[in-house]
C-alpha cells in the first residue's frame, strides 16, 4: 500500500469515560477513572503514541511547583501563584492542587519515578520562585513515560494510538455525548460515544512561528497544535483569559529551556551582555518576561544564562541533567556551536507566543473539579485554566478530572447526539482530500503563524490586531476552500492547521477584549498601557455564541487565602535596582 494512503471508513465504539490526549494529565486521568470503577470502560485516545507523547516525551528534569510539607504550605503556594498572576486567579482550584500534589508525588514515587532527596532522606527542594520554595529535581526523570505506561497496562486501560480527535458530540440538551476522531495514517473515521469526556490535549504550542523559521522547532512538543482549545470552543465551552499568552525565555534558535530552574539553584543566573544581573528572579512570569524584553531592546543585550563562574564539577552535574532529560538534544546543539558552559554563557531569546496554563493562566475554563462549562466535559493539564500548572499540576488535576468524570459517568446514561453532526464533520475533515488542486497545509500553516508573529506578538497594538485579523480571515478562506491533502499524513497536518487558525483568532479576539495591560509582557496593550483594576480585575471568558466568537467578564471568586495590600505587587518588582 502506498504511503499513508487514504482509506474510506467510518465506525463507532462506546465507552464510559473517554480521555483524549495521552501525555501527562491524560494517563493519570484514565488511570484514576479506571481505579474509581474497575468495571467501567476507559478509553485513552492519542494522536501520537502514549509511550512517547506530550510535553514529557523524554521525561522531565524536575517538579517546578511541589508543595512539600516542611518547605511550603498550600496557603503560601496559593498566595504566590495569585500574586504571580496579578490577582486574576480562582484560588479554590489552586489551593486544592496545593493540598493534593504531595499525595501525587508520593504516588509517582511508588510508580518508580525518583525525586532528589538529601542525606536525611527528605525531598531536596530548591528555591526558584520569587517568594517560596517549590522546585524538586528528578535525577531519573527520563523514566516518567515508561513508569506511567506500566500503570496503564496494569490497569487495562484501552489505548488507541494515532487517532486525532477533531470535534466533540453533544446532545440537544447540551450534555457531552462523545467525540469524532480520524486515524492519522489511514484517514478512517471513528466515532466514540462516551458518558464523560476529559480533554488533556496539551498547549497550543504551534501558534507563533519560531524565529529559526523551522515550523516544528517549537518550545512545546510540536504535536501540540491547540486541538483541545479548538474542540472545546466549537463544543460551546468557555475559555478563560486567552489574552494571557505564553512567552518563554529560551535558548536562542534551539527554542528549548536553558534551563534556569535546573541551573539556578546551583548558582547560575540570567545576565545581560555586561555580565550583570537585571532580574531578581528567574521564575517565568509575565513581569519577568517584560524585563527580559526591555533588556534585549535596551542595547544591553544579548541576554545570557551564565554558568561559567561555577565549579567545573557543578557544571558537569548540571549538564548531566540538561543533556539527558526533557530536551536531551540541548547537548548536541551546544556541541555543534562549540559552546562549553565552562567558558561561554548560553545565548537566550524570547520565544514566539502560545497558549499554555503550564506557565501562564489561560485555557479552557475549569472549576476545582476540572469541570468545563459543558456538562460531562472535563479538561486538565496545559490546556485547562488552572494557572502555572506545570507537570505536577497536570498529574494532580488529571487525577481530579478522572475521579469526577467517572462519578459523572456512573450516574448518567449515554447522551443522544444528532447523526447529521457526524456526516457534517466527516465532510469538513475530508474536504482537503476531495480537491484536485490547491494549497498544501504547510503553506497555509506557515502563513498563518507568520501573521501571528507579525501582528499578534506583544506589544499588542489595536491597529495591528485589526489588520492581522483581516489577513488571517483571508488565509482562513484559502484554508476552507482551497487546501489540499494528498494522503492521510497531510490530512493530519491540514486538520492541525485548522486548530492553529482557531487559536490565532481566539488570541486576537481575547486580546482586543481586555482593554488594559496586565501580566507584564503577556498582555501589554500599548493603547491601554496601565493596569485597570477598577474595570478589569476579572477573568475574561471567550465562547462560541450563535456561531460567533464572544467575550464576557467573569468575577474572580473570593480568595481562600487573603493577600495583603503590600504583597500584591511583589512580582512587579522584578528589575534589580542600581545600588548606591
Amino acid at each position, binding site marked *: 500500500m502506498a504511503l499513508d494512503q487514504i482509506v474510506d471508513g467510518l465506525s463507532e465504539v462506546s465507552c464510559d469515560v473517554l480521555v483524549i490526549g495521552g501525555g501527562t494529565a491524560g494517563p493519570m486521568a484514565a488511570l484514576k477513572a479506571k481505579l474509581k470503577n474497575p468495571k467501567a470502560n476507559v478509553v485513552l485516545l492519542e494522536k*501520537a503514541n502514549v509511550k512517547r507523547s506530550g510535553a514529557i516525551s*523524554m521525561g522531565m528534569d524536575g517538579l517546578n511547583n511541589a508543595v512539600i510539607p516542611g518547605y511550603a504550605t498550600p496557603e503560601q503556594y496559593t498566595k504566590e501563584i495569585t500574586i504571580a498572576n496579578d490577582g486574576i486567579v480562582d484560588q479554590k482550584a489552586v489551593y486544592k492542587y496545593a493540598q493534593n500534589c504531595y499525595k501525587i508525588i508520593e504516588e509517582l514515587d511508588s510508580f518508580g519515578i525518583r525525586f532528589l532527596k538529601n542525606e536525611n532522606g527528605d525531598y531536596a527542594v530548591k528555591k526558584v520562585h520569587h517568594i517560596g520554595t517549590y522546585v524538586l529535581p528528578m535525577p531519573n526523570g527520563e523514566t516518567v513515560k515508561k513508569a506511567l505506561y506500566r500503570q496503564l497496562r496494569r490497569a487495562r486501560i484501552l489505548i488507541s494510538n494515532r487517532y486525532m480527535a477533531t470535534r466533540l458530540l453533544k446532545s440537544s440538551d447540551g450534555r457531552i455525548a462523545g467525540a469524532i476522531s480520524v486515524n492519522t495514517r489511514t484517514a478512517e473515521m471513528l466515532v466514540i460515544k462516551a458518558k464523560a469526556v476529559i480533554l488533556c490535549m496539551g498547549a497550543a504550542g504551534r501558534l507563533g512561528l519560531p524565529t529559526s523559521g523551522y*515550523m516544528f*522547532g517549537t518550545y512545546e512538543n510540536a504535536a501540540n497544535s491547540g486541538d483541545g482549545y479548538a474542540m472545546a470552543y466549537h463544543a460551546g465551552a468557555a475559555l478563560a483569559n486567552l489574552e494571557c499568552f505564553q512567552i518563554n525565555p529560551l535558548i536562542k534558535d534551539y527554542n528549548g529551556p536553558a534551563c534556569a530552574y535546573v541551573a539556578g539553584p546551583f548558582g547560575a543566573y540570567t545576565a545581560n551582555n555586561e555580565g550583570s544581573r537585571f532580574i531578581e528572579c528567574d521564575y517565568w512570569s509575565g513581569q519577568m518576561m517584560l524585563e527580559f524584553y526591555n533588556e534585549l531592546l535596551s542595547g544591553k543585550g544579548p541576554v545570557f544564562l551564565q554558568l561559567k563562574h561555577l565549579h567545573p564539577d557543578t557544571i558537569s552535574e548540571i549538564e548531566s541533567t540538561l543533556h539527558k532529560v526533557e530536551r536531551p538534544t540541548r547537548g548536541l*546543539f551546544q556541541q555543534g556551536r562549540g559552546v562549553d558552559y565552562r567558558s561561554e554563557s548560553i545565548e537566550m531569546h524570547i520565544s514566539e507566543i502560545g497558549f499554555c496554563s503550564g506557565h501562564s493562566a489561560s485555557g479552557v475554563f475549569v472549576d476545582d473539579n476540572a469541570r468545563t462549562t459543558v456538562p460531562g466535559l472535563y479538561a486538565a493539564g496545559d490546556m485547562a485554566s488552572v494557572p502555572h500548572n506545570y507537570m505536577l499540576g497536570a498529574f494532580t488535576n488529571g487525577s481530579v478530572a478522572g475521579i469526577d468524570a467517572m462519578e459523572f459517568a456512573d450516574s448518567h446514561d449515554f447522551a443522544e447526539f444528532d447523526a447529521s453532526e457526524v456526516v457534517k464533520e466527516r465532510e469538513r475533515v475530508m474536504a482537503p482530500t476531495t480537491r484536485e488542486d490547491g*494549497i498544501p497545509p504547510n503553506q497555509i500553516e506557515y502563513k498563518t503563524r507568520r501573521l501571528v508573529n507579525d501582528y499578534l506578538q506583544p506589544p499588542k497594538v489595536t491597529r495591528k490586531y485589526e489588520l492581522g485579523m483581516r489577513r488571517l480571515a483571508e488565509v482562513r478562506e484559502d484554508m476552507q476552500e482551497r487546501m489540499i491533502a494528498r494522503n492521510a499524513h497531510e490530512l493530519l497536518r491540514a486538520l492541525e492547521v485548522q486548530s492553529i487558525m482557531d487559536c490565532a483568532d481566539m488570541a486576537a479576539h481575547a486580546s482586543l477584549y481586555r482593554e488594559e495591560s496586565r501580566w507584564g509582557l503577556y498582555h501589554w496593550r500599548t493603547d491601554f498601557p496601565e493596569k485597570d483594576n477598577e474595570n478589569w480585575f476579572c477573568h475574561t471568558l471567550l465562547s462560541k455564541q450563535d456561531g460567533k466568537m464572544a467575550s464576557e467578564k467573569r468575577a474572580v471568586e473570593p480568595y481562600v487565602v487573603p493577600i495583603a495590600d503590600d504583597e500584591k505587587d511583589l512580582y512587579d518588582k522584578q528589575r534589580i535596582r542600581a545600588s548606591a
Partner: protein
Amino acid sequence: MPLASYQTSVPVVVDDAKCIADKGCTVCVDVCPLDVLRISDMTGKAYMAYDECWYCMPCEADCPTGAVTVNIPYLLR
C-alpha cells in the same frame, strides 16, 4: 496552482546496516510524536519521510540496534 517538490535535508538519519525494520521492527516509527518516520518499500529500512522534527530523541533512544541518529535541523543548528 500546480505543486512543486521542495528540497530539504532531514535531521533524522538511519544506518541501513544496523536497522532491522526489514525483520519487522517498527519501534522508531511507533514512538515518534510527529509521525514522520516510515519504512521504505524499496529498502525495507526506516527513513525520515517528512521533515517535521521536534528533535526530541525517542526514535534514537528507543531503537534496539542504535541505528537511528537525531541531528539538529539545519535551520536552527
